[in-house]
């Protein structure tokens, strides 16, 4: 079998039946559907959602009485600082893939950037899941008792710390697990390709 000849014949057959593949002005104006581009875009959406959540908290703070007012203001500030730091970290990462670079560079760069982006996601999971539940509970208690010391005396510090630690660990593990489900196989695919290049 003449491999070269067969290859050219196959190429010609692809061209003969290429009517459904269009290359026109529309095809260069559509958005990228790549997983990496989608992942970065989704993270920016999440940052927008943080704003959607934090604004009602701020509005609530204006109408609440102290000490609930201070709790809500603190939550708003923490969310906004977290959001600002995440966006700053995201902007520092070069999320533009240069597809004209050599294959090895692209694969290595994409793995590194994905890990950085996923790390930001993991930190969000570790900080904001444990924060949301206790703050929500504390806010409801403050609405009832109006005094932080009354609530403090009702709580057992050991239970509070244990509960907090469990939530933090759960948040961290959950974020890591979700990242693994969503992107583990893709990262494996990229790593396998680097191995294939080196074999």
């Amino acid at each position, binding site marked *: *079998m003449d*491999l*070269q000849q*067969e*290859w050219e*014949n*196959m*190429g010609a*057959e*692809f*061209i*003969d*039946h*290429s009517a*459904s*593949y269009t*290359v*026109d*002005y529309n*095809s*260069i104006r*559509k*958005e*990228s*559907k*790549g*997983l*990496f581009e989608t992942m970065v875009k989704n993270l920016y959406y999440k940052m927008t959602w943080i704003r959607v959540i934090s604004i009602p908290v701020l509005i609530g703070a204006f109408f609440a009485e102290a000490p609930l007012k201070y709790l809500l203001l603190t939550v708003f500030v923490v969310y906004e600082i977290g959001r600002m730091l995440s966006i700053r970290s995201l902007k520092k990462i070069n999320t533009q*893939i*240069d*597809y*004209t*670079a*050599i*294959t*090895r*560079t*692209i*694969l290595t760069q*994409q793995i590194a950037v994905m890990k950085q982006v996923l790390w930001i996601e993991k930190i969000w999971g570790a900080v904001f899941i444990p924060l949301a539940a206790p703050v929500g509970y504390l806010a409801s208690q403050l609405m009832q008792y109006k005094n932080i010391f009354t609530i403090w005396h009702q709580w057992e510090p050991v239970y509070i710390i244990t509960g907090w630690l469990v939530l933090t660990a759960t948040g961290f593990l959950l974020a890591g697990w979700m990242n693994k*489900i*969503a*992107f*583990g*196989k*893709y990262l494996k*695919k*990229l790593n*396998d*390709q680097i191995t*294939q*290049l080196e*074999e």
Partner: protein
Amino acid sequence: MSEQDFLQLVEANKGIVLKIVNLYADDAEDRKDLHQEIIFQCWKSYSSFKAEAKFSTWLYKISLNVSLTYLNKKEKAARLNNTGKPDEYVVPAELSERADHLYQAIRQLNEIDRGIIMLHLDGYDNAEIGEITGISKNNTGVKLHRIKQQLTNILNKK
């Protein structure tokens, strides 16, 4: 250079994109999506294209790199629910029996080897393949020898 120049150049070299799309994507829908993604990424990078370079080589490089990092729909499904079987693919219906034979043989190679043999069969020498993939010239030679042997074995079995 204008959009029209770009589209004309892509049209003149469409065989490259079609071969890559058909050999990397798993079914008709994925092939169209991958084709679209390649054209989009090429246009995005077009400002960096230097006129003294060969457009076909530039197009080959981007098409290959986009395809390697692209996730097929089945892979996406397997990624999320572990039910998809990423190794399954649909042979393009229009292929003749002979072309189908070669197509299936090449599909059995891993993704990197597939790209290397494609470049080789399209006339790129070992140094050029190395420049595109990042593999040394000598290693490319060794790899090509192994890939050809593997391909011959698969084709002879059929």
